[in-house]
């Protein structure tokens, strides 16, 4: 596992953005230069003074864009160089309370949009930057403003925003038609075609109805949408009917991602009652994928180790788990499809992982 937050000591007063390098070759105001390194970590200097970061080597940190929080005594690796899984956690508040939430919401919010904006402008060329939460659109106007400025400044950058789609309104239709939003994809969960079931899973009344309203607006805006459905025992049998629903009412989406459960947050405590062993019965998933693809909706599988997916659908299983929290079972070592495989979440039950894999 790659640690994203590291202990750090810094002399500045307030949090700031720094790009860590061996030398100050690019001469940007955010560039920090390595001045010392020992077994504990690396020390850099830049316009905000000294920062000593523990738990990583300067090789590992080379080129990373970090937010240094002197008061909190830590540095957050916001944009790791070369990683395709960089994500901005813009808030931990949420209006929904999903049964299987991997990141249970908190009541407080720390506004860091200005820091995120500075960080994004320093991103590697051609970066795809994730935005997540909590629910990012609770701070919709800050979020859109931040993205719009970054997208204007950096024509090479794209965003992928995970949102529950509860807060789009009429005014957003025109705003989201701006050509800059051709570089923004909205990852939006839908858990069932039956409003009652969806609402129960997300823990919010009339959420489904509100989602449909937003979907109509996003479609009119020409927004790029990735639908996401986390598989749990509550919705697995309803998956084929969800597929039919998507093909009839949400066919304008770019792709439908069916996601296996992440053993963290609420899902960890409710694992036994939520987890679906897709290897034991793939039928509803296969039927759902076939129904979607029959009508031209592209489908893909996230967090499904390839060997656990029947061969007909295996190519839809993506290496979806972020690099920093991905691991493979010991039994995976001889597998030839490892590089194309999601592997497991770092926190997936080891016994379950080891028992389930058959190297390909």
């Amino acid at each position, binding site marked *: 596992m790659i640690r994203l937050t590291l202990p750090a000591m810094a002399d500045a007063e307030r949090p700031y953005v720094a790009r860590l390098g061996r030398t100050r070759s690019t001469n940007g105001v955010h560039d920090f230069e390595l001045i010392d390194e020992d077994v504990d970590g690396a020390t850099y200097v830049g316009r905000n003074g000294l920062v000593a970061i523990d738990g990583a080597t300067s090789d590992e940190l080379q080129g990373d864009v970090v937010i240094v929080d002197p008061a909190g005594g830590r540095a957050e690796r916001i944009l790791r160089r070369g990683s395709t899984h960089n994500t901005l956690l813009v808030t931990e508040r949420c209006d929904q309370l999903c049964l299987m939430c991997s990141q249970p919401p908190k009541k407080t919010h720390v506004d860091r949009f200005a820091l995120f904006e500075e960080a994004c402008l320093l991103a590697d060329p051609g970066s795809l930057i994730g935005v997540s939460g909590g629910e990012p659109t609770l701070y919709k106007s800050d979020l859109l403003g931040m993205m719009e400025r970054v997208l204007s400044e950096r024509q090479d950058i794209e965003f992928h925003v995970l949102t529950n789609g509860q807060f789009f309104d009429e005014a957003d239709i025109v705003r989201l038609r701006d050509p800059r939003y051709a570089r923004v994809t909205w990852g939006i969960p839908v858990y069932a075609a039956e409003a009652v079931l969806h609402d129960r899973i997300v823990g919010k009344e009339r959420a489904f109805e509100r989602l449909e309203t937003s979907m109509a607006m996003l479609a009119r805006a020409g927004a790029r949408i990735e639908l996401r459905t986390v598989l749990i025992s509550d919705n697995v049998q309803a998956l084929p009917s969800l597929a039919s629903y998507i093909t009839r009412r949400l066919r304008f989406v770019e792709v439908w991602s069916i996601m296996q459960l992440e053993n963290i947050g609420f899902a960890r405590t409710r694992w036994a009652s939520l987890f679906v062993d897709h290897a034991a019965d793939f039928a509803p998933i*296969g039927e759902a994928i076939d*129904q979607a693809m029959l009508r031209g909706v592209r489908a893909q599988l996230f967090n499904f180790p390839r060997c656990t997916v029947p061969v007909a659908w295996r190519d839809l299983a993506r290496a979806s788990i972020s690099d920093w929290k991905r691991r493979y079972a010991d039994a995976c070592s001889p597998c030839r499809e490892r590089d194309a495989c999601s592997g497991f979440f770092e926190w997936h039950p080891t016994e379950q992982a080891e028992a389930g894999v058959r190297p390909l």
Partner: protein
Amino acid sequence: MLLVGDSGAFALGPRSIVERLGTDALTHEDRKSLAREGLLVAEEDALGQVAHGHALAGRIGGAGALDYLILVPTLRCNLSCSYCQVSRVAERSKGFDWNDRTLTAVLEIIDALELDQIKIEFQGGEPTLRPDLIRAVIERCERFARRQFVICTNLQRLDDEVIALFDRPDVFISTSLDGDVSTHARQRTGDAATTDTFLENLRFVVDRYGATKVSALPTIDPASPPDMDALVDSYVVHGIDSVFLRPINYQGFARKRHAEVRELDAAWRDYHAAFVRRLIERNWTDRSRVLEETYFSICLRRVFQPGADRHVDLRDPNPVGVDYVVVDYDGHVYPTDEARMLTRSGVIDLAIGDVFQGWQGDMRDQLNAHATNRFDPTCQRCAYQPFCGRDLIDDLSRYGRIDLPRHETEFCRRHLAMFDLVFEFIYSEEPAVRHSLARWLRLPGTPSRFGAVLS
């Protein structure tokens, strides 16, 4: 009864629901089940409205900017096939190749294309008689990010120059294979030695490049069609799983001579349907390969996946001279290859211009004013309208006019039969049928149902 909406949504429902629909007596339950299938959209259902509009737009075949050229660098050919009267001249004829001026004009057209993609099909005559012209065109296309070249050849003569062209990864080979040896010899090559040369060369290119680079089409004489299994086997033996059945296309006098042409058309439809049924059986018996008839697959995919194929023969609207054109050996520009042949046979001059002056004139606009089935009174009453298309050139070719009632045209009869077959299969319970449908629709598994049934 089959209910189809203008967006292509469909379901099978009882006659009673249709009667209630006709008398404005739908029940609440009727409305719910029709709405679920996208066959009815409530006014207050914003998402349903958008979804319907999106689906409707998806049915409209968007002809974009020009990015597909069919080029005839020479009309000369080294074969003399029985049914190819008008689109060839003898190999030694003079004055039937592009001259320098024509080549220059074609290259200038390529330079002026707006898009970053290009597809070029080299037809003939036999285009490989002029590999220098093919090479000049291909070399001019290096600037395109995506490019694909198809050389339509009889594969009678493979010299180093031609092989060097084939060796390019962006070049594909299309040839004709009319079935077993005797059929192919009778229709095309004439004698056994020439047939052997062709088969050896076909084997050579398939072995050298793999079957994915080589496609082949059989031309079928509906009056004496080949044995289906023998035809399929002649493809399978070369590793080619897709067969695009084409009926002999009688032009001009040849068509007039065949007084029984209507019977031939019916015989063709029967043969085609029987052929598709036979493929279904074979696919079920031997599940290690997926045989398909290309045109049936195109029609099938149009029902479920509009826009999946870029097939310019079946789309709506189907404007001519917009996204693709045919450039003849003399620089004349035609909307389709069939239009070129019609013109040569003296039926009607369908040239829409030439490579020197362009083709954005009245001729093209007049044709395109009628290039849709959308407002045709017969088509509007047809359940298959959203899936079907329009082919002005075919109508002109057969009837010399485009205003016949649709259902009196062969285009209509052929596609009515085709979509009847498609929908028979969609609602078939036969595992063999469903297996082939799923493969032809490029699905990973076989869904439990292809079409909804209203309760």
